[in-house]
């Protein structure tokens, strides 16, 4: 859980924070600045784009419901312009759908709005170190879509066909509250490889713009949120 030695120092990590609710913005900003990160705050999509013109951040941390547009658009633009930027969404409660939607367009992490300041900083640090966070509810949400259902569950369309049985087993383990160590022991694999698998799962769930139809379909699904 500790950042590895070759990881960049916190002050070298630039973060673009996009959040329209001032108290939440203050809170997140305080937590990140307090941890030593280089934070640029934006309250609207327009401000965020203006900031991107000058510099691409190492981490984009964005809310999805913004006054002048949808955070999904920003995530897409960011993926296109700067593939190396880590993207996180700010999640309220009970909105696994939103998080998974963001994952399908390229997000690899998320932060709970009410998370403790230390947790917020730790999550960003781990993401930069290559460890995507995943909660039991997100894992549950994804893994339930790998099951054959007579009628698809509500929410965004999720193409889980690319996930390997091992990855699905890992998701089940997380959903049921087993620790990475327990999962690794149970599946007969090294404990260190579990976070890598999770990152890989996020990448596989991302819908690349292979065709307009798929893209549009996903977008439709997201706009409905």
């Amino acid at each position: 859980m500790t950042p590895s030695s070759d990881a960049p120092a916190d002050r070298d990590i630039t973060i673009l924070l996009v959040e329209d609710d001032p108290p939440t913005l203050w809170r997140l900003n305080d937590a990140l600045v307090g941890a030593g990160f280089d934070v640029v705050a934006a309250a609207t999509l327009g401000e965020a784009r203006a900031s991107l013109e000058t510099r691409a951040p190492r981490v984009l941390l964005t809310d999805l419901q913004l006054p002048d547009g949808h955070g999904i658009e920003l995530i897409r633009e960011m993926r296109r312009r700067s593939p190396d930027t880590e993207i996180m969404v700010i999640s309220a409660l009970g909105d696994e759908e939103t998080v998974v939607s963001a994952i399908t367009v390229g997000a690899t992490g998320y932060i709970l709005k009410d998370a403790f300041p230390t947790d917020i900083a730790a999550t960003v640090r781990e993401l930069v170190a290559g460890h995507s966070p995943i909660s039991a509810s997100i894992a549950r949400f994804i893994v339930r879509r790998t099951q054959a259902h007579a009628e698809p569950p509500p929410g965004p369309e999720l193409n889980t066909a690319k996930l390997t049985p091992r990855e699905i087993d890992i998701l089940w383990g997380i959903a049921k509250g087993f620790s990475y160590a327990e999962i690794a022991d149970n599946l007969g694999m090294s404990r260190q490889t579990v976070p890598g698998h999770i990152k890989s799962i996020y990448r596989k769930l991302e819908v690349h713009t292979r065709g307009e139809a798929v893209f549009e379909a996903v977008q439709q699904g997201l706009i409905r949120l």
Partner: protein
Amino acid sequence: MTDEASKPAATGGLALRSRKGASRLVQYVLLQAVIAALCIVVLRLPLPEPPAQYRVVDFTLSDRDTTRTVALPDFLDTQFSVDEPAASYAGHFIWSTREAGRAWSVYLPRFTNGVAVLVNGVEILDSRRDPDANRPDRATPEIALIPASLLHDGSNDLVIRLYVWGPISGYLAPLFVGPDDALRPACETRTLIFVTLPMVFAAWRGILAVILAIMWAMRRHEPAYGALAAAMALGASQAFLQTTVDDPRHPHLNAALIASGPLESGFVLAFGILFFTRRWPRVLGALIFVPGMLLALIALFGTPQAVREYSVILGLPAVGVHLALLALIVAWSEIRRQDVPGLLLGCAVTIVLTSFVHDILSVAQIIPDHRLFFTRLSYSAMLVAIGAGLTWRFARALNRVDGFAAHLAIRLREAEEKLKASFAREQERERTAALARERTRLMRDLHDGLGGQLVSIVALSERGEAGGIGEAARAALKDLRLVIDSMDDIGGDLMLALGSWRDRVAAQLRPHNIALDWHAVPPGLPVYPELRPWHVIQIVRILDEAVTNAVKHAGAKRIAVSIETLKDDTGEPRGAITITDDGKGIAPADDAADGRRKTGRGLANMQNRAARCGAALDLISGSDGTRVRLKLPRRFPDGDAAAG
């Protein structure tokens, strides 16, 4: 009061019934009288005869030693054997050569028992070779062509040798000699009525015998069909068995034939008794068949002469008594309950009885006797009518069964649809009720947790105590997460709910620097298909309460959560969740009165929630820590007893 009131009604009803019965009896008797009268009229209708000019009536009778002149018809009382002619009638007829182009015949409309015809000394006919003609009960006519070579101009000799072998006296009706085309139509008519028709009826009875026998075989509880089948079979075989001239050579055949009449009428009577009274009188019933059996015995072992005598003095009265009894039974049944088959049978019996009386009177020469017997003919027709009627009735019963089956199918479909509709209604009602219950629980859950916490936040903010607000708001958020989380379909896998809970607890404990030891033994907990969101909420609230106690009151540094499946006394797998902390214990050890009361209430709350889920909660608290163990039920209860 009631006695007095009911008595006149009862007697009145009786009187009414007897009056009704009497009027029915009168009606019935009148109807039968009309039918008998009609029957007599029909019986007396003259049969077609050839032109009178060909009639030959004057004969010289040579009866053994005596010779006298007779005019036909003539009766001959003496009885002889089959081989020896009883008498010889000698007469004449005129033929002229002008008739040479036309064939001439001798036509004998009726005779008993046998005749031989000689024209100019040459025999041209011997009726004894025709089996049909040998039966006295069949009025078989005979016609014989006279070979042209035998005829000569003027008077020709005609000799009729009459053979008589009983049981009735010899008889020779007026005969005709003339052109064949003038005589034959009358002969054909008689053949049709007295020979062909009985055979047709007999064939018909044979078929009905088979049908009725099958019916009886399939419905053994209705012996009436069996009795009627026996009567039919007997009658049919009797019609096809032929009387031989020299009877002693076939005594069995002879016996069967002679006994068949009384036996057959016995079976018909048995049918009537079974069919109309539905009871069988054992002793009297056996008596019915006595005359027939006696006759059969006599025919087998007695002399031909005795057989003939007894068949008249025993057989005929037996048939008459059977018919009369049958008529009475049918009349009695018809008066008690009027129905069509009974009425038809009654009329048929009247016709047969009338014919029988007519035949007896005719043989006894009380009424003009033409030796034409109609009993068997009418009786055959009656049996055919009964058989056809029963078959018709059977077919109608089958139709009714079909109709009933169709009706039943319709009713069944209706009932099924009604049931379906009511089931759908019930299901809808059940669904609505379930939704309402779910909504109520959700409201209460929100109210219990979130509502209270929000009110605390409001109160704290109003007093300007910012410190407590954060804690209360966090608790509210946690509770909201719990409620939202529990709404998710986890397919009965409590582990999925506990997974989310672990994340929340880990986040809760991190600021307090309390370590969380999570120990889940794969595969974790059993799957509960009946698990509902409110069960999940109760269980997670219990666990939350335990963790909160450990953090707030026990001052624990380490909390261990252990999830495993244990075997209970009966070997059934039971889920168990254990939360252990290293704190200073709660309740008794807590010296603050307020805190004790609070934890006491918290404990009661936990017990209450566990009970609602059918789970068992046991808590051991000491100075070295607290252990809360929640043993999950084998099956989560469907209803919520405490929900009210």
